[in-house]
């Protein structure tokens, strides 16, 4: 009897510990959100979105050029990354049994595990050392981070399309590629777009590869072979600076970035509810 009680007590204690662990794990999330909203909201006004980054002494200013730069960089990155990721995803789902598909799928997974700073160094060695710090180098680095995510999600999205739809199309005598491009693709469209959006959210927050391929830059876009400003990287530069107005800008930038990233994550979750 005594032993039985002991087991029950142990069970209760472990239950409490398990929920405690969940609580501890979530504290940083709520703390991060609370602090960003509380400290960032006071910085945000119209000027914050339309004025360029101020110099150290200036009180007035915003992050307009960083917003422009980030949009250009992730736009370029998706121009490179989306087609490669998407078509690779199609290949992996259509020809999933080939040996080469197994290899590519595995490499794709390993690629997603390479630290982003190493991707940055790779692009630094490959591009920056010949053409200099530039948007194009940064976009290339970000596209390498993007490709594994897009490939993975499009492969899975295409595999979810019921076989009966393909069979119906094949029975009508439609070639395999047309079946895929016209029929399978349109029913997997939503899930594929979801994957692309999530990869955009991911690269918008990347700062390490941007740092080593573009460096800190606070002016407007001046050509593809020149650097642009970047919100995520600016947070690093502003936060580690000793200037009050820059630190305030860091919190404002963090608020903008977190709204974009968590916004995409939450929207994706709401629109695809029941699917995953």
């Amino acid at each position, binding site marked *: 009897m005594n032993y039985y009680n002991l087991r*029950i007590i142990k*069970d209760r204690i*472990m*239950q409490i*510990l*398990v*929920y405690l*662990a*969940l609580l501890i*794990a*979530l504290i*940083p*999330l709520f*703390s*991060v959100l609370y602090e*960003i909203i509380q400290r960032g909201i006071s910085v945000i006004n119209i000027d914050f979105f339309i004025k360029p980054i101020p110099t150290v002494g200036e009180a007035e200013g915003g992050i307009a050029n960083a917003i422009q730069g980030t949009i250009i960089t992730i736009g370029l990155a998706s121009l490179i990354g989306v*087609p*490669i990721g998407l*078509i690779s995803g*199609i*290949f992996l789902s*259509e*020809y999933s049994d080939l040996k080469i598909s197994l*290899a*590519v799928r*595995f*490499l794709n997974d*390993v*690629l997603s*595990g*390479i*630290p982003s*700073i190493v*991707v940055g*160094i*790779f692009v*630094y*060695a*490959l591009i920056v050392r010949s053409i200099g710090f530039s948007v194009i180098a940064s976009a290339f680095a970000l596209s390498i981070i993007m*490709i594994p995510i897009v490939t993975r999600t499009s492969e899975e999205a295409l595999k979810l399309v019921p076989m009966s739809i393909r069979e119906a199309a094949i029975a009508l005598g439609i*070639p395999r*590629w047309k079946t*895929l491009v016209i029929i399978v693709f349109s029913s997997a469209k939503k899930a594929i777009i979801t994957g692309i959006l999530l990869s955009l*959210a991911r690269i918008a*927050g*990347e*700062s*390490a590869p941007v*740092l*080593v391929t573009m*460096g800190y830059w606070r002016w407007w876009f001046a050509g593809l072979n020149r650097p642009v400003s970047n919100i995520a990287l600016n*947070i*690093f530069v502003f*936060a580690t600076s000793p200037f009050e107005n820059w630190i305030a800008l*860091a919190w404002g930038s*963090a608020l903008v*970035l977190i709204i974009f990233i*968590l916004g995409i*994550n939450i929207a994706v*979750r709401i629109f695809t509810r029941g699917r995953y």
Partner: protein
Amino acid sequence: MKAYQEPNNFFKYNIKTLLKFKKTFTGDDAFKIITSLFALIIFLIFVLIIYEIFKESQLSIQTFGIKFLTGTKWDPVSQVFGALPLILGTLITSIIALIISVPISLGVGLALSEYMPKSLGFLFSFLVELLAAVPSVIYGLWGIFVLIPFLRDSVYQFLQTTLGFIPIFSGPIYGGGTLTGGIILAIMVIPIISAIFRDLFLIVPISQKEAIIALGATKWETVKILISYTRSGVIGAIILGFGRAFGETMAITMVIGNKFQFLPSSLFDAWYTMAAIIANELLEATYDLYISALINVGLVLLLVSLLINILARLIVWRTLKLVKGIARE
């Protein structure tokens, strides 16, 4: 014997017609070739990353050889580069991160898969996923202005007064430092490890659980068997978390203090990691050997992360497949 000959001829005939048929190049063939070329780009990028980083490290490898990994001096002025303190710093902070995050992740994984009702489990799983979506640099910002003051003023003071007799808890408290670095890494690793834990526990066949419960086991006793059932997957998840902590850059650069020294005087002292020194010095490196040494640090990071990822993914894949296979039977 004759009975075997006929089907043989029949088979040959079929292959001939098949080959004739194959001579026409269809749209499907083009489709296969084009898509496979795109998939090969992934392969190409992968090879190119290894080749390029290896090539650019050559200068440093030829100059220092193995001393690069065992040297303890990093002096750009006298052109001597040894990365051992960086390797130790990266290793120790990642281990601290694992010590903190593994028990918590285990709890989170169990709460999400076993303890909570399904609907709540979905909601909290989503919150844990959001934790993973927060960018590194934002954790760094939060680390500097929220976590460091909190740790310095309440936790570290307390640790020092109670455990100060142990050398690693003595010495001046700056706020930022080795332990803070480990804690911020732990926060970033928890969502990754716990998500894999949850998936592992969720795919354990229900019949297994039912069998244990039928024997009169309490929830905790059931859970203990679940953990041992997915043991190798759990280990794989921990290795994967280690790999993530190992290469983490921005957040740890912002809180660890960035001080190059062989060993810090205590857990509160500043240190350095491999990723952090690249982020801090690559843009300021003025001569080729310096740049090559930094890329060489990147090569070490790359090789370790490749090793960890290949190992961990093989383990996790195998477990998931194994358990799924049993579930199907």
